[in-house]
């Protein structure tokens, strides 16, 4: 049982370390957001799973389950909010990014998302021409 807990905790620590290295190494704000919301959430989930197996009683398991559930629910929402805000304040994409699906579809002043590029090009948020 202890060996199993050790393996789970080691995997969680590796994922947290990879998230930290990715936060340093990634070239772009949006890629850093993806590191934050995937690798770190998985790592902390594995660490708290190891804690639940170590204590093996109802109160600790319920508390770790609530923490993991809350992290899994709030990480995508927070990542979407930060990504939207950083797209509006003008963070450019990485210069080797292949495509930008939102190019020209956000309105600069009203913050409305349109489904296609319209005929008011001065209002569109466009990161390729900045």
């Amino acid at each position: 049982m202890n060996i199993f807990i050790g393996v789970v905790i080691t995997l969680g620590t590796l994922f947290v370390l990879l998230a930290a290295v990715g936060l340093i190494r990634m070239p772009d704000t949006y890629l850093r957001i993806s590191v934050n919301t995937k690798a770190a959430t998985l790592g902390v989930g594995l660490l708290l799973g190891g804690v639940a197996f170590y204590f093996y009683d109802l109160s600790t398991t319920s508390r770790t389950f609530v923490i993991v559930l809350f992290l899994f629910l709030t990480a995508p929402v927070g990542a979407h909010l930060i990504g939207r805000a950083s797209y509006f304040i003008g963070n450019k994409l990485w210069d080797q990014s292949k495509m930008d699906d939102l190019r020209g579809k956000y309105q600069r002043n009203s913050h409305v998302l349109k489904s296609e590029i319209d005929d008011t090009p001065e209002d569109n948020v466009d990161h390729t021409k900045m």
Partner: protein
Amino acid sequence: MTLVEYCRIVILPVLAFSVILILIRFFKGPSIADRIVALDLLITTGIGIIGVYTITSGSSTLLDTGMILALIAFLSTVALSYYLERRSKKK
């Protein structure tokens, strides 16, 4: 080597090293969105450190603090990105 010694000798220093790496991005980050992401990841790593510390100390009381930290991390992310987007909005 027991599990508690393994956590204390190997796991906690690796987590502390990752906290240092995140702090470098927090101080260096080119835009303010990078700093918000680093702050969020810092609190998430802190929850993991609290989990490992409950194993080494043997009492699970500190997990309540982790729960509160998860709540506050989400709240601060939402508030900061809301004001960041509001600042870029013209009139």
